[in-house]
């Protein structure tokens, strides 16, 4: 190992990168990383503590051959980073009421539709972000990428899962690329229909690209989308959020 030391100051050396600047670069910026972009919400001290904890958990994961504790640690970090940011706003109102529709038939007789904000699309459909952008560019240029949101895509019940794609620019899509059922469980619901746990999976299932800064547009379209589901004759809707 070479110990790189120099007594000569290098005027061309870049400014030292602070922990908070590094975390900010993960958030749709130079080092865009949707898995860990939540680190942007931490103070320098919180970042140092969290990253030290990650290193400790990585060491244990290697020694123990198990990533469960590491996964739990990261999940708890994500919760700690996001929960304080979710206060009531005009786009995230604290609704005084909660519409309620009871099930009208037993689940084993019900037709259930899958509906996801996870930006799922078919391999012969355009992704949600503009075609001139690569996915990586869309993640970095999230404002430009959101110009076309929220269009709705129809996903037929019998779609083989290898034809499904995830194009969401604000969550890490690597798990969905490995197994789309982590967010769009079309195959799992089809299996439950075959086992008669549910009556049927709806012929038409849906996805759109949810994003926290466009809820107004979603609110405007939601009544039309609800009417589509009514026209489809579904008995219940299973929704997943990224």
């Amino acid at each position, binding site marked *: 190992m070479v110990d790189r030391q120099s007594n000569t100051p290098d005027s061309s050396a870049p400014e030292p990168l602070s922990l908070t600047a590094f975390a900010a670069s993960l958030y749709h910026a130079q080092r865009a990383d949707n898995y860990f972009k939540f680190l942007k919400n931490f103070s320098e001290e919180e970042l140092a503590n969290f990253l030290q904890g990650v290193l400790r958990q990585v060491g244990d994961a290697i020694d123990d051959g198990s990533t469960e504790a590491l*996964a739990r640690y*990261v*999940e708890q970090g*994500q*919760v700690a*980073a*996001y*929960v304080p940011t*979710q206060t009531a706003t005009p786009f*995230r*109102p*604290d*609704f005084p*009421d*909660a*519409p*309620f*529709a*009871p*099930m*009208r038939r037993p*689940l084993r007789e019900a037709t*259930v539709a899958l*509906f996801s*904000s*996870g930006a799922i699309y078919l391999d012969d459909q355009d992704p949600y972000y503009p075609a001139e952008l690569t996915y990586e560019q869309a993640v970095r240029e999230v404002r430009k990428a959101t110009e076309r949101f*929220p269009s709705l895509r129809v996903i037929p019940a019998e779609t083989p899962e290898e034809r499904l794609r995830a194009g*969401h620019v604000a969550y*890490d*899509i690597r*798990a*969905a690329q*490995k*197994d789309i*059922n*982590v967010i769009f*469980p079309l195959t*799992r619901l089809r299996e*439950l229909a075959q086992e008669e*746990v*549910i009556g049927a999976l709806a012929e038409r299932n849906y996805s759109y690209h*949810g994003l*926290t800064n*466009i*809820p107004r547009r*979603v*609110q405007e379209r*939601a*009544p039309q*989308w*609800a009417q589509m589901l*009514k026209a489809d004759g579904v*008995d*219940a*809707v*299973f*929704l*997943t*959020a*990224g």
Partner: protein
Amino acid sequence: MTVGHVARAIESIGIPTVCVYIEAFRPDAELLKPARTLITPHLMGRPLGLPHRYEQQRAVIQAALRLLEKADHAPTVETFVS
């Protein structure tokens, strides 16, 4: 979090819904109040859990489906325990 808005619109025309949210977005569910929410201890982009964990995915789905049947008022929020 926007699925909460969609679920409310669907529910208001008489179709029951259940939403699966991750723990990090629990406050969204509590504010928007979709009729039924299952909160899972998973990471963003993986509300049903990790890739290829077939039994884990089924357990989440079945817990959400049970919520569809058993909830008798809204909002009903349940935490999934694996």
